[in-house]
């Protein structure tokens, strides 16, 4: 399970598109497919930071799509091309995954 991130600086805004590879198994699907709601697993929190500054902060539920894609923007104040955007998600089972991209 990984993450794909693209970050582009345009004018005074950085535009980001990120995709996480995650089944996003809801409680209902877990019950139907595995017989137990306990097998549900989905991303619960997803954040991004550049140079230690939080630029994206999302708390999520089971209703994001499978392999969720998110697009967001943040002000480029103090950031420049080549800076590293680091994104991390955590899922219900406590698994963490970090991905990164250079701002282009």
């Amino acid at each position, binding site marked *: 399970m990984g993450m794909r991130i693209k970050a582009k600086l345009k004018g005074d805004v950085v535009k980001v598109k990120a995709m996480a590879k995650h089944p996003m198994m809801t409680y209902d*699907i877990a019950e*139907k497919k595995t017989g137990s709601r306990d097998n549900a697993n989905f991303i619960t929190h997803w954040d991004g*930071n550049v140079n230690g500054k939080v*630029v994206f902060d*999302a708390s*999520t*539920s089971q209703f994001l*799509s499978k392999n*969720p894609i998110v697009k967001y923007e943040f*002000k480029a104040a103090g950031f420049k091309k080549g800076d590293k955007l680091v994104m991390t998600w955590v899922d219900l089972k406590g698994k963490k995954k970090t991905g990164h991209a250079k701002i282009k």
Partner: protein
Amino acid sequence: MQRRNFLTLGAVAAATAVVAPALQAADERKAHPDAWTAKTVDDALKALYGKTLADAKEAHVTVKTPDVASNGGAVPVDMSCDVACESFTLLQDVNPESCVVVFDQNDVTIPKNSVKIKMKKSGSVYAVAKGKDGNLYYGKKTLEVALGGCEG
């Protein structure tokens, strides 16, 4: 490494550790656990912001989805808000629970997001922004879902 340098490093590390929580992202699932089990839009908003849709103004927030979503497993939603806000939340009224995602805002984030969500059947999505002025603003979009997305 000299002892003096080592101590300085330690002091810097300690200072960073103290500052760190302010830079840390907020986990709304821990901060407002009731919002994530709420079955209605109003209950979720009450848990998150202490207010309901009746207290919110239908202004400043735009939500876009297709009028008919062919696949309920991945309904594209574009949401944006044109006033400064602290928090920007997406909800819907057809799934077992209402809340889908909360985007916390700070001084560099822009309340403009696109996500793909699951929808069990036709219904409405709501984007609700808590403005820095303390007011709630929302936008709403009703759509048809051809094939429900919660069955897998």
